[in-house]
């Protein structure tokens, strides 16, 4: 398939292996450009295998249509799986404020989370022109990869939002609300549908959705669509010139005055800190664990660990003191019913009221 650097290889062992290379791909190509292994004399490479008949199993059952429909909610580019429904950009904006903005920031600009920034949902443009940017030199601008500039299909957005978002409580958005959120996100990405800009009044429905053409739809190689899709992938991956390959040079391969690039700004804020010591860990005096701590960590810390999303954060005396001014019962009630960007029960709808209250108590106790 491609040649080794024979000139630089001298030992006979290597020549023998070069012959092997010549045959690794003979006849058949694997879809990933790699070697193909077959079962031969009861062996699959170094593994012995059971070559008895493995057919006619009767386990399991045939899923019903309803069961399949309950799980098969993916949406494909041709509209397969896209439900009926509709929603306006304005409605999407309202929903975004309440359910998404605390993480993804104003107009999808990306917000600060407890550890780093949440994904940017828009760079305010649908132009693909930055995608050729390379940060080869200091201070160069990189490519801007966001929904409008990078995603090839809008179907991905509908499917992902309905199955994976909002992050703390996915699979909670109706079809209409999902249409509205998709409409809003497309509008902040400056996407047009059928030549029309998406202003506040714009109502997205299934029919209009199927007319969306994402700006970067032709930005991906190889072409995976149609009956030749897998064959195109195979051809692409079987040519390592497409993704870089080395040469097995053994002597005088590069200029001996090598250019050594050292770490400029070291990142070493690791948790736990790096150490290879073999010593006993110093035991922290652990008091009794508060029953609400686990619940807090599992369901609340995603928003309440920092004040980045406007939630009264753990350990913030002032924030909790002012929350508690209205009395603990009102605070519980607000939490259980939801208030502003705080979803009902923080999105953890399975918590009992007692469990929810104990998570609140834990936060209050640790914020005094």
């Amino acid at each position, binding site marked *: 398939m491609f040649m*080794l650097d024979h000139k630089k290889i001298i030992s006979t062992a*290597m020549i023998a292996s070069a012959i*092997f*290379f010549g045959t690794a791909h003979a006849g058949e190509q*694997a*879809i*990933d450009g*790699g*070697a193909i*292994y077959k079962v031969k004399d009861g062996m699959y490479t*170094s593994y012995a*295998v059971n070559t008895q008949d493995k057919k006619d199993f009767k386990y399991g*059952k045939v899923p019903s249509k309803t069961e*399949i429909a309950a799980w098969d909610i993916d949406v*494909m*580019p041709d509209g397969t799986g896209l439900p009926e429904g509709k929603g306006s950009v304005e409605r999407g904006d309202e929903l975004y404020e309440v359910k998404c903005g605390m993480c993804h920031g104003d107009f999808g600009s990306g917000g600060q989370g*407890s*550890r*780093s920034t949440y*994904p940017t949902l828009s760079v305010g443009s649908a132009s693909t022109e930055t*995608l*050729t*940017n*390379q*940060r080869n030199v200091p201070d160069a601008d990189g490519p801007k*990869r966001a929904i409008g500039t990078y*995603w090839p*299909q809008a179907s991905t957005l509908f*499917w992902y939002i309905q*199955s*994976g978002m909002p*992050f703390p409580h996915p699979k909670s958005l109706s079809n209409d609300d999902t249409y509205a959120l998709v409409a809003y996100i497309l509008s902040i990405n400056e996407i047009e549908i059928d030549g029309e800009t998406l202003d506040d009044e714009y109502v997205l429905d299934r029919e209009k959705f199927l007319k969306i053409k994402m700006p970067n739809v032709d930005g*991906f*190689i190889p072409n995976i669509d149609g*009956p030749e899709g*897998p064959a195109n992938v*195979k051809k692409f*991956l079987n040519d390592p010139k*497409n*993704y*870089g*390959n*080395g*040469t097995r040079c053994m*002597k005088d391969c*590069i200029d*001996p005055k*090598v250019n*050594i690039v*050292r770490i400029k700004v*070291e990142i*070493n*804020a*690791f948790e*736990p800190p*790096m150490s*290879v010591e*073999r010593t*006993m*860990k110093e035991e922290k005096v652990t008091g009794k664990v508060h029953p609400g701590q686990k619940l807090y960590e599992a369901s609340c810390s995603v928003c309440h660990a920092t004040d980045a999303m406007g939630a009264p954060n753990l350990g913030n005396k002032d924030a909790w003191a002012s929350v508690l001014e209205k009395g603990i019962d009102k605070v519980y009630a607000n939490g259980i019913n939801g208030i502003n960007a705080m979803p009902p029960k923080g999105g953890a709808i399975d918590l009992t009221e007692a469990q929810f209250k104990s998570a609140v108590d834990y936060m209050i106790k640790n914020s005094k």
Partner: protein
Amino acid sequence: MTKMTKTSEQDLDIVSEMNMAQSSRRNFFRKAAVYSASAVAATSILSPVKLSAEDDSAIIHHKKWGTTLGDPVTKNHYGIPSPYEHNNTRRTTALLASGDNYASISMCPIHEQEGIITPNGLFFNRSHGGVAHVDPKDYRLMIHGLLEKPLLLTLDELKRYPSVTRIHFIECPANGGPEWRGPQFNSIQFAKGMMSSAEWTGVLIKDLIADLGLKKEALWMLAEGCDNSEMGRTVPVEKVLDDAMIVWAQNGEALRPEQGYPVRLMLPGWEGNLQVKWLKRLEFSKEPFYAKEETAKYTVLTPSGKAIQHFYPLEVNSIITSPCPEKPWTDLKKGDLVEIQGLAWSGQGTIKHVDITFDGGVNWKEVSLKGLVLPKSWTRFSYMYRYEGKPLLLASRAVDDSGHVQPTIDQETAVVGVEAVYHRNSICTWEVTDKGVVNNVHVRS
């Protein structure tokens, strides 16, 4: 084994009676033993009387673990590592999180890795919506789409299928991804720890669907998880019918929640992200699905502005694990014979050769492979080196049996640029200083 007969049971009774009779006498001896132990102040009664400064106190003095009882067998019904090993652990850094600790990654301590099997508790952990805890009783696997007969299985039913066991690494294609534009971590755990390896047990999908009548038009399969993110990816049917597996065990026990308990997809040699965890649904189709993780992410943007999609295999790769920044040579003396060790792997085949260089890649020599040499698996390499205390630029380069050669940084970036994020497999170089300190550097020509 001899069976315990009536008489021997009686013998035991007699012995225990004798013990009772002697117990008061034994108590006397026990007290005496305590006194004499304190009298010798924990110095070995077997040791020579005269101690010199060179004598190792670890030998001369009795140790607590040799003079007291250890734990009863009833402690830790599920065993845990020695408390002295607590630094051998996964680690995280904020840079690698998307917002919080739920869509994030924790890195495998490969500087402490021995052999080619990662202990289950140290396996790197990447999730897109937290680590799900699936109740095995409510677990279902649905197989549908372009098949004559769709199928729904419980976990117990799935495990009735004939199993195979294989050793494979799993690597996140973003392994090394923060370092396209230069080194950032003086740590092998963070430079290369988005990978681990295990022995996986499960069923080959081709065996599982043999009876289901896969239709000719079926070219792709969606694999989808049941976790918070319901992560899905499109897999070509050709891989499904080759070595793809559905696995439920890892190193002899059930998968860990971090690895997708109770069931995950296993696509030997391919991107970790494709090996969907908490697997719920397989749907066969004519066209690919365009999931978020195969469009927005896990695509390789090249300088032409076009991005490579469906880039499945992890290409041939290697790294020297000893020495490394965490495990330097600062304790060596000139003239010491030391083993240089490392890991080589390829998602496109079996490791054929590993070469190492001491001068940053000007000259190379082939080194020995050691241990099991398996397809799509970590493979150990080894070289005996006489330490001279002089500066080195130490690196390894692997070659696999499909003819792929690990590229230099220059060779790789010439094709894919520096904005690819994923699939970085270029040669990793350690700068070893004259003091034996090891630093992560990039060598450019």
